[in-house]
C-alpha cells in the first residue's frame, strides 16, 4: 500500500547528477561538485589539454563505421545528459523528472529529455483500444478513435510546456545548490501537432450555457481538471505528435490535450474524456492542489497562465569558468501570455542591465533563446536575466514576488534567477536581492510534503 503525496516534490537542497553506473540516482553533494555539472565547460578545457596543441590520431577513419540503426540514440559519450528523477519511493510513478536545460541548446527539447510529471505512473495504451469521448453540454455526444483523429486536419505549434510547480525551490529561504535544469527544468519546448479542439467541437456542437471543459486522462490517477471553454476553443490542440513523431508514452501517447502557455497539469495526458459543463468540477487538482495559498489564508485558484520567465543557463549553478576572458551568456525566456519582447541581462546583481540578443523566431508561448557577450575580468559577479513579454509584463524580482504571494504558494514561481560567479570561477545559486533571508531558520516550506 503506497499512496503518496502527489505534489511535485520539493527540490532537494543539493541535487546530484544521476549515477547511472549504480543504476540509481544519488544525492551526493561532493559527487555533484566533484564530477561537476560544468562538464561542458571543463570538458572543453580537458580536451584542449589532451591535445597538447597537436592534432590527435583519428583511428575511426581507418575502420568501417557502425551499421545503420532503426532508431537513433545519442552518442554513448552523452550518456550523462539525462532527466533527473525525483519520485515517491512508496509510489514510484508519482513524482517528476527534470529536463537538463543546462546541457541543451536551441529552443527545442529532445523528446527523450522532455520533463515528466506523473501522478501515478505512465499507462501503457494500445492506440486501437483508446477512445476520446466528448459529451456533456454538446448537441451530439461523440466518440473518436485515434485512427479517426489522424484523418482530421492537423496543425503544428511550437510551444513550451511548464509544470505549475516548476522552480518551486525558489520559495525556500535559502537557494538550492543544484544544476539549473534540476531546479527549473519542469519546462520543455516542442513542436506539437494535432487536431484543433475547435474542429472536434464544431462536430459535436456546443449547447447554451457551456462555459467549462472538464478533461480526464486514462491513467491510474484518472487525472481530471477544469478549463475555461473559451480559452480551450481558441487554441487547444488534441495533440498526436511531438517533434515530428507520435507522442512519447510519458507525454500522453496516444493523445493529449495541449494548451499553449497554460499550466502543465491542464495539458491532460492520455486524454480519454472531455465533458462540457456550465461549471468547473472542482477536482482535487484544482482545489487541494495546484492552488496558491496566500498570506491571508485565501488561495488563488484557476491560475492557468504561466507568467513571463527567463533563466540564464550558460553559465549556471554548478559550472565553473576556467578563467577570465570572453564568454557568451545564454539562456531561455518564455511567457504564457505571448511572445518574448525583450530580455535583459545584468552581471552586477541587477544594478545595470543590458539588452540581450533574441535568437531565431520569437513565437508566442514558446522558448526564446537569448545571448549576450560578457568579458569576465576575474572578480565576483552576480549574473541575472529578466524578460518582458508582449503583454507588457516584466519578470519580477524575487522580493516583489514574495511580497505579493508570500512563501506558501508552492506553484507559479517565476522570479529573476541569480548566479554568483566566485573569484575562482565557480558558479552557485544565490538570491540576488533582500528577499532571501539567508541566515533565517532552515525551516523551509514543503519539506514534509514528499
Amino acid at each position: 500500500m503506497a499512496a503518496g503525496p502527489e505534489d511535485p516534490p520539493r527540490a532537494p537542497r543539493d541535487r546530484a547528477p544521476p549515477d547511472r553506473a549504480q543504476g540509481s540516482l544519488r544525492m551526493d553533494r561532493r559527487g555533484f561538485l566533484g564530477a561537476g555539472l560544468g562538464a561542458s565547460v571543463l570538458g572543453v578545457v580537458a580536451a584542449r589539454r589532451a591535445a597538447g596543441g597537436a592534432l590527435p590520431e583519428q583511428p575511426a577513419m581507418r575502420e568501417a563505421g557502425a551499421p545503420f540503426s532503426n532508431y537513433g540514440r545519442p552518442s554513448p559519450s552523452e550518456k550523462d545528459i539525462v532527466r533527473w528523477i525525483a519520485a515517491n519511493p512508496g509510489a514510484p510513478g508519482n513524482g517528476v523528472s527534470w529536463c537538463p536545460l543546462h546541457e541543451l541548446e536551441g529552443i527545442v527539447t529532445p523528446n527523450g529529455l522532455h520533463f515528466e510529471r506523473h501522478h501515478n505512473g505512465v499507462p501503457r495504451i494500445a492506440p486501437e483500444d483508446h477512445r476520446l469521448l466528448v459529451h456533456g453540454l454538446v448537441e451530439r455526444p461523440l466518440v473518436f478513435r485515434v485512427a479517426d483523429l489522424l484523418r482530421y486536419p492537423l496543425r503544428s505549434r511550437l510551444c513550451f510546456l511548464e509544470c505549475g510547480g516548476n522552480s518551486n525551490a525558489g520559495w525556500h529561504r535559502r537557494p538550492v545548490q543544484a544544476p539549473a535544469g534540476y531546479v527549473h527544468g519542469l519546462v520543455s519546448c516542442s513542436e506539437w501537432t494535432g487536431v484543433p479542439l475547435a474542429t472536434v467541437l464544431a462536430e459535436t456542437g456546443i449547447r447554451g450555457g457551456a462555459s467549462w471543459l472538464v478533461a480526464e486522462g486514462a491513467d491510474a490517477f484518472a487525472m481530471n481538471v477544469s478549463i475555461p471553454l473559451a480559452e480551450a476553443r481558441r487554441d487547444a490542440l488534441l495533440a498526436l505528435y511531438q517533434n515530428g513523431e507520435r507522442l512519447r508514452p510519458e507525454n500522453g501517447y496516444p493523445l493529449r490535450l495541449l494548451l499553449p502557455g497554460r499550466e502543465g497539469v491542464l495539458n491532460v495526458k492520455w486524454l480519454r474524456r472531455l465533458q462540457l459543463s456550465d461549471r468547473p468540477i472542482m477536482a482535487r487538482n484544482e482545489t487541494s492542489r495546484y492552488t496558491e495559498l496566500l498570506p491571508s489564508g485565501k488561495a488563488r485558484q484557476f491560475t492557468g497562465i504561466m507568467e513571463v520567465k527567463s533563466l540564464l543557463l550558460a553559465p549556471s549553478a554548478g559550472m565553473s569558468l576556467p578563467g577570465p576572458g570572453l564568454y557568451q551568456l545564454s539562456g531561455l525566456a518564455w511567457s504564457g501570455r505571448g511572445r518574448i519582447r525583450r530580455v535583459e541581462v545584468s552581471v552586477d546583481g541587477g544594478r545595470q542591465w543590458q539588452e540581450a540578443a533574441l535568437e531565431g523566431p520569437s513565437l508566442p508561448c514558446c522558448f526564446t533563446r537569448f545571448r549576450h557577450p560578457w568579458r569576465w575580468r576575474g572578480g565576483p559577479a552576480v549574473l541575472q536575466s529578466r524578460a518582458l513579454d508582449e503583454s507588457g509584463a516584466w519578470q519580477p524580482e524575487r522580493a516583489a514576488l514574495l511580497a505579493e504571494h508570500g512563501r506558501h504558494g508552492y506553484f507559479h514561481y517565476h522570479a529573476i534567477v541569480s548566479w554568483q560567479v566566485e573569484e575562482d570561477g565557480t558558479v552557485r545559486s544565490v538570491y540576488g536581492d533582500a528577499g532571501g533571508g539567508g541566515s533565517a531558520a532552515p525551516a523551509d516550506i514543503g519539506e514534509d510534503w514528499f
Partner: protein
Amino acid sequence: MARYAAYMATRAAAAALLLLTSAKTGSEPPSAAAGPGLGQPVSDAEIAVWDIGVFPDGTGLPPGRGDARQGREIYRRHCLSCHGARGKGGSAMALAGAQYGLTGDYPQKTVGTYWPYAATLFDFNRRAMPMQAPGSLTDDEVYAVTAYLLFLNGIVGEDERMDAVSLPRVQMPNRDGFLPMAAPPMEAPPGRP
C-alpha cells in the same frame, strides 16, 4: 502501406463526395479546418459507464452509503500505511490533524483546513485511490472512507451516513477559501486554429 492505401481510398471517396455535394448544392469546398465528421454517436448508457466525475453539488454521485465506523476499517486496510494513523504521520500527505491553520509560517493544508467540497473527496478517492489499485473500492466503501476522513477532521459525526444526498450537503470549513482567478482575455496568437 496499409495506412497509405486507406488514405488514398479515403481521398477518392472524399473527392467523389465533394463532387456530389458540389453538383448538388454548388457549395464551396470545405474550409481547411473542417473535420471529416468521423465521430461516432454514443448512448447515454455507454457514457454513464465512462463518466466517473462528481461535481460539488453531488451530480455524478452513485447510489450507496457508508459511515465513519465502517470507513475506519477500510482506511486501516487501504490508506493507513501511507497516510498514517488518523490521517497524519505517514509518508504521504496529511489528511487530518492540522495543528495550524492556513496562515503563519507553517500552514497545513488538510481535508479539514483546505478542501472546499466534500463531494471532491468522493470523486478523488474513487478515481485515484488507493494508488496500487485505483478503482478497486466499491461505492459503499468509498462513501465510508470519505465519511471517516470527514470524521477525523471533526466535520461529521461517527454515525453520520454519507450518501448521494447527504455528502454534498456537508459544509466544509474552507468552503470560501478560494479566489478564482478569472483568466484575463489574452490576445489570440496569430496562427491559431
